[in-house]
Every structure is written in structure tokens, then in C-alpha cells.
């Protein structure tokens, strides 16, 4: 140990000469080791394992991809040395202080930082070669044909069929060799032509790339984004929407910045328009008929045309826009303290209802009953007083709170996928005959209800966090209940739960991909169809990577916006 210390001191002293300094470096190695390594056997074992992993991994890397690894190693060594020197001299620069705080604050972290950087490098290198170096960007899998002369022996040596026993003048020898890629697509086929003079012509039909086949995504780009709305008679609607959003977006940005328009009626109108815009845009996209005013409202069946990313976004946005006010109302409803129906109304009404139904409904049910259970069920009106009792006991006759609570708990109790199936399969059964609601609208309604139930609980949490004093101050100033909630309570409560609400909306946006299971063509469904296109048989990975990127960008954008919103609204918070 002492020898090591001596050597290190020599090295550090020589470095001292290199770097001009006023203060002496002081290092008590015994203390350094005691504080960083030898204080715990576990740490020493852990360090040893880590060092061994890093070392073996690094040497393995050096053989295959030296440059990157060597550069990383050099940078690592340099920065560690810089940090240590700065630490010893007690003269940190911003850089070394940052590195000390974030990368090299203990011996273990020095090790881990190297290992992690190397792993990240390897992952990046792997993805880079998959996604770029070895990838194909061609529109369709291009078969290139190569012919070259070989001998019978050469074919046998290369692992091909033994052609020496074959009769001469054979045009094709089958079975041909074929190589398939990971997606199951044939990328290389080899055929052998045996000439009369027993020479062989090898014909190779190849598209060899081991990386990604981006052609599948590029070819289907418009499919993935707007699905059948790329048709020329429909696509203008998408462009119109985009142009409108761009122009109106820029215009309203200026309006929001304008000091003169601050809290004016025009601005609240603009806000209201933005909030309802998903519904308007949905209607605009659906109004895809051509011709006169009548035909304008006639609809191409959107269940077959609206799809892809456009569909996912509209579905999510509509569900969000509808569920937000609904959720807030439910939250307020659940906390409402309106005077309930008194028991002396509820109980007599429940009793009379029971008697009435026992005399009218039960006999008919009894006639139709086919089992003991059926007979039992026929007496269901007996349950009415029980329910009435529960209602009075739990909610003291408060209908609003009872409805909100039951609504929230029921919807929170159902899995989302069940909601979707219910809205597609069960919902039409309850509709009067001759009525028809678009699949998409039904799914939107289901998602909105589902989301509203969760949102209500989030908002309720926010409401509970508002101090009583705020209510009292608003009351003592004579504000009406409506104004109190609109201007005082809700703005504060909602601002408190923005992170939770946005998290929920991000979840909702991603959950829209479940509509694939009930037969609607969202982004995921379109991506899955690519694998069955003749050109791109079996290719799933690349579309999924595209999906991943798209969802990630959208979700991050929402998260970023929520943080910005929090910052903006957080002004003057206590």
C-alpha cells in the first residue's frame, strides 16, 4: 500500500510541475481510501465486481470497435484526472464542479460512469448500424440479380448442392437456396445453372441489408398519418384544417400577447373556440360529401375513411375536450353539499313505488318465470326500499353527490378495453330503432366518460387542497357560488393538479391505440396492416419504431406544455 502511495505521490508531484499553482495539493491517502473504499467490505466487493465487468467489457469492445471506445476511455480518463486535480487543489471550475457533483462523486460512481457511457455507446452504435448504416431506404425491396461463373466444386465447397452427379444441361437446380431476414422476407435466393461442359452459372437474387427496411414506413407515410384521407377528394380537408390551425394559431398568439386585449371578451371567445376546435374539426372532416349544402352535411362513412394518426389525435383530443368539463362537474358534484331530499319524502315514495310495482310488474314477471330463481327475481321491487335506505344513510338525500359518486366509481371500476367493447357492441342495443351513431363517436363518448371519472378524482384532490379561507373570503365578499368556483376555487384547484391531469391525458392519448381491438383504424391498426402488404410482408419492427417515435414526440410535447403552463400559472403562488 505504501509503495502505491509513493508512486501516486510521485505522479501527482510531477503533474504539479505541469500545472502552475499557488496552493499545495494535500492528499491523505489513508484517509481517502478509508472514506471511499475500505470502510465497507460490501463496497470493496461491489467495486471489484464493477471493475471486472468494466474491464472485461472494455477489452471486448476494443477488439470490435476500437475508435469509439478508445475516445470514450480517453475522455473519461482526462475528465476524471481533471476533477481529481481540481479537488486536490480546491480550485474548481464550473466544469469540474459539475462533473464532481454529477459524475465522479465517489469511486463507485467513477466506475459506473465509465460502464454506462460504454453501454450507451454500444446501444447507440447498434441502433445506428441498424437504423442507418445497414438500413434500406428503398421504396420497395429491390431485387438485384448477379450472375457469375463457378465450378461444381466451388458450389459444393460453399455449402451448395452437390452438382457433380446431376445430368448435364440442367437449367435450374432446385431447391434453390434462400436466405430470409429477421422479418421472414426472402432477401437472397440462389439458383445454379449447370452447363453442358459441367461449368456452373450462379444466379443470385439479393437484397441484403441486415438493418431496418425504412421503405415500409416511407411508402406508408401518408397511410400512417391520414389513412384514407389521402384520397384526392378528401385530402384538401386535411390541408384546410392544417392551414387554418397555422394561421389562426399565429393570429391568436398575437392576441394573447397583446396587452390591450387582456381579459377581454374577444380573447375568451378565442379561447373557447380553441377548446371546442377538436369537435369542429371532427365535424369538418366528417362532412366529406360533395355538391350542394345538403350533401355537405351528408357523410362519407368515417368509420372506413378516418384513420391513422389523424384519427388517434382527433379521438384523444375530443375525449379530452369533452371529459374535462364533465370531470370538473363530477368533482364538484361529489363534494356538493346541497340540501338533500328529506327522508320523509324518500321513504314514502320508495314504499309506494315498491307496492305499485309489486302489483303491476311482479305478476307479469311471475307468469313468465321459468325457474325458482325467476320467481325470486319477480319480487325485485322489494329492493327499492333497501336502495332508498342506503341512499339516505350514505348521502342524506343528496342526489347530486349520489349520482356523481356512483358515476365515478362505476366508470373507474371498468377496464378501458371493456368500455370500448361496450360502446361498440352494447351501446347500439340501447338505441331506438333506426338510430345510428358512428362507431367513432361511440368510442369518443366511452373514452370521454372513462377519462372524466378519473379526472373528477384528480380535480377533487385539487379542490380538497384549497384552504377553507379561500371559500370564506369569497363568501364574505358576497360572490355567488358560481362565481366563487369559476374565479377563485377552480383556477387554483386545477392549477394544483395540472401535472396529474396532463399525465392522465397523455395516458388517454396512448390508450387510444386500444381501439384497434374493436376494429377502428387508428395508428396502430394501420401500422399492423403494413406487415400484410405484398411489398413489405412481415415487416413490423420499423412501423413500430415509427409509432414509438411519434407517440414519444406527442407525449413529450404535452408534458413540456404542462410544465410551461405550470410555470406560467405559478406566478405569485405562495
Amino acid at each position, binding site marked *: 500500500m505504501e509503495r502505491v502511495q509513493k508512486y501516486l505521490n510521485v505522479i501527482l508531484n510531477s503533474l504539479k510541475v505541469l500545472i502552475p499553482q499557488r496552493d499545495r495539493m494535500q492528499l491523505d491517502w489513508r484517509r481517502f481510501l478509508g472514506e471511499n473504499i475500505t470502510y465497507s467490505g460490501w463496497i470493496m466487493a461491489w467495486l471489484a465486481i464493477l471493475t471486472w465487468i468494466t474491464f472485461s467489457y472494455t477489452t471486448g469492445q476494443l477488439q470490435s470497435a476500437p475508435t469509439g471506445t478508445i475516445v470514450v476511455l480517453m475522455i473519461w480518463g482526462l475528465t476524471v484526472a481533471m476533477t481529481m486535480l481540481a479537488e486536490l487543489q480546491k480550485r474548481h471550475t464550473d466544469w469540474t464542479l459539475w462533473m464532481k457533483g454529477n459524475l465522479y462523486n465517489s469511486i463507485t460512481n467513477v466506475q459506473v460512469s465509465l460502464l454506462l457511457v460504454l453501454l450507451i455507446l454500444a446501444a447507440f452504435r447498434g441502433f445506428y448500424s441498424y437504423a442507418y448504416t445497414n438500413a434500406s431506404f428503398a421504396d420497395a425491396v429491390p431485387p438485384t440479380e448477379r450472375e457469375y461463373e463457378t465450378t461444381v466444386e466451388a458450389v459444393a465447397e460453399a455449402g451448395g448442392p452437390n452438382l457433380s452427379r446431376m445430368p448435364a444441361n440442367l437449367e435450374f437446380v432446385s431447391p434453390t437456396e434462400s436466405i430470409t431476414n429477421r422479418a421472414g422476407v426472402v432477401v437472397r435466393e440462389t439458383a445454379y445453372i449447370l452447363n453442358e461442359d459441367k461449368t456452373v452459372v450462379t444466379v443470385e437474387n439479393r437484397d441484403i441489408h441486415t438493418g431496418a427496411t425504412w421503405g415500409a414506413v416511407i411508402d406508408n407515410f401518408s397511410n400512417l398519418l391520414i389513412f384514407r384521407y389521402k384520397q384526392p377528394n378528401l385530402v384538401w380537408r386535411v390541408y384546410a384544417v392544417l392551414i387554418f390551425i397555422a394561421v389562426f394559431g399565429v393570429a391568436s398568439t398575437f392576441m394573447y400577447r397583446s396587452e390591450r386585449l387582456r381579459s377581454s371578451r374577444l380573447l375568451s371567445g378565442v379561447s373557447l373556440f380553441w377548446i371546442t376546435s377538436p369537435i369542429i374539426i371532427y365535424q369538418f372532416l366528417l362532412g366529406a360529401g360533395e355538391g350542394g349544402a345538403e350533401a355537405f352535411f351528408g357523410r362519407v362513412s368515417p368509420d372506413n375513411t378516418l384513420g391513422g394518426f389523424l384519427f388517434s389525435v382527433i379521438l384523444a383530443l375530443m375525449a379530452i375536450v369533452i371529459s374535462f368539463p364533465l370531470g370538473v362537474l363530477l368533482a364538484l358534484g361529489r363534494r356538493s353539499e346541497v340540501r338533500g331530499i328529506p327522508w320523509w319524502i324518500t321513504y314514502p315514495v320508495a314504499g309506494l313505488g315498491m307496492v305499485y310495482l309489486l302489483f303491476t310488474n311482479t305478476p307479469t314477471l311471475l307468469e313468465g318465470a321459468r325457474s325458482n330463481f325467476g320467481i325470486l327475481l319477480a319480487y325485485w321491487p322489494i329492493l327499492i326500499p333497501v336502495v332508498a335506505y342506503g341512499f339516505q344513510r350514505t348521502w342524506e338525500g343528496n342526489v347530486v353527490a349520489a349520482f356523481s359518486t356512483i358515476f365515478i366509481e362505476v366508470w373507474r371500476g371498468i377496464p378501458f378495453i371493456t368500455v370500448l367493447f361496450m360502446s361498440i357492441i352494447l351501446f347500439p342495443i340501447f338505441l331506438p330503432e333506426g338510430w345510428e351513431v358512428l362507431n367513432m363517436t361511440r368510442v369518443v363518448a366511452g373514452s370521454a366518460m372513462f377519462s372524466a371519472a378519473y379526472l373528477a378524482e384528480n380535480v377533487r384532490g385539487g379542490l380538497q387542497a384549497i384552504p377553507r379561507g379561500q371559500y370564506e373570503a369569497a363568501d364574505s*365578499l358576497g360572490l355567488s357560488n358560481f362565481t366563487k368556483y369559476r374565479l377563485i376555487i377552480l383556477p387554483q384547484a386545477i392549477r394544483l393538479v395540472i401535472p396529474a391531469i396532463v399525465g392522465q391525458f397523455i395516458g388517454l392519448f396512448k390508450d387510444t391505440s386500444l381501439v384497434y381491438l374493436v376494429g377502428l383504424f387508428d395508428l396502430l391498426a394501420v401500422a399492423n396492416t403494413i406487415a400484410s402488404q405484398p411489398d413489405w410482408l412481415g415487416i413490423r419492427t420499423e412501423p413500430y419504431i415509427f409509432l414509438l417515435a411519434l407517440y414519444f414526440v406527442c407525449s413529450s410535447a404535452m408534458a413540456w406544455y404542462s410544465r410551461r403552463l405550470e410555470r406560467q400559472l405559478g406566478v405569485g403562488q405562495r
Partner: protein
Amino acid sequence: MAEAKTLKTTGDNVIVCNEVQKWYGNYHALRGVSMSVRSGEVIVILGPSGSGKSTFIRTLNRLEEHQGGDIIVDGITLSHDVRNIAEIRREVGMVFQQFNLFPHLTVLENITLAPIHVRKWSRERAEEVAMKWLTRVGIPEQADKYPGQLSGGQQQRVAIARTLTMEPKILLFDEPTSALDPEMIKEVLDVMRDLANSGYTILAVTHEMGFARTVADRIIFMDAGQIVEENTPDNFFHNPKEERTKKFLNQILNH
């Protein structure tokens, strides 16, 4: 000052309470409180903590519901009728211990919110009156700040300005200085003193004995949900009638 005094003595009863009862579950918080306040009177309510004094003045504008007895404010009987409550709250302003400013609104927005939405004033008029009161309480330069950026004393003065902009006839102060640092108490008390001298009817729950002694027309001493003693400040502090009052004064004056 003399002018204000005459106003006080000639006023009618603006608040009349008769046997007010209040329960929190099984806890009997107000046990039959009866009193009346004439227009322009300044009344200080004293009492040990838990004596029901805060609860009592909070029943006057229906922040707490009373379960027995009558409360008549400005000729209107407090009942479940929402219109009655709204009308009373328009005439009765309240200042709280914890200020209860709206943290998401600027000082000016805090003050103008109620006049615009309750009194239906135009924004211009509301801002004009608000600035007048902000000047009166001495902080017109803070109008565009948020409450969180002000000191406690400033916040309480904003709260007073907010209450006054509604032009109430009656002011209720619920321990307005209890949450303040000692050096900020004076700035709030000065404002209250100023208001008392300008003829407002004031009911204040406070522990500021100096304020009670110099400004109050009458002191009401409460204990255990009942009024123990009603007296002028002079008699209350120097010549109290009740044993309980003496004990209380002993405790707070000789600590």
C-alpha cells in the same frame, strides 16, 4: 372625531342578536348570545380562546350557520334564504386572521373582483375605487403585485382595502393582527383606527388591548359561548363587574 361620536350615539340598531345558539356536533359553541349594535359603534369582543367569539362574528355573515335564536343584520333576518344571505354579505365586510387573499390574482384583481361581479360595477370604476382604498391604506404602489410578494402587514391592508371597496356598512374583524409580526401589527391597527374614526360600524375580535381601550365604544367579554360582560372600555379595564372578567384581565395584563 367629535363628529364621528355624534353619529355613533344617534344610530339605530344595525345588528340585533337574540339567544343565538350554535352546536358543532355535540359541542355547544354558542349558548344563547344576545346583543345589539348601533350604527357607527365600534365593538371589541374579548375572551379566552375557545370562548366562541370568532364563531359568533362568523355567524353574523353566515360563514357559520346558527341553529337557534335570531340574527337580524341591517333589518334582514338571517335564514336559509340565499337571497337574504347575499344581501347581508353585501353590507357586511369581513377581514380574516389569515388575510385570505386570492393568491392567483394580483392585488388590484383581488380588490376589484367582488365589485365587478357582485356590485356589477364597470372595471374602470372598480379600479378607481380600489386605488382610492389602496391609497388610504398606504400601499397604492403594490397594485400590480401578487399577494405572495407582499409582507403580512401589507397583505392584511390589501384585505382591508378589498373589503372596503365593496362599500359595506358593517365591518367584521376576526383577529386581524394575530398572524402578523409585531412590527406589522401597528400598520394594520392604524388603518383600523382610521376606519373607526370615520364612522363605520365595527365588530372586532382582537387581542390588542391598546386598541380595545382607546378605540372601542363598548367591550364585550365572552367565555364558554356566552357573553359574560358588556361594558365601556374604561369600566371594563378598571372596574370590571364580573369575577371571570377580573380573572381574565389578570391573566393577560400581568403576564
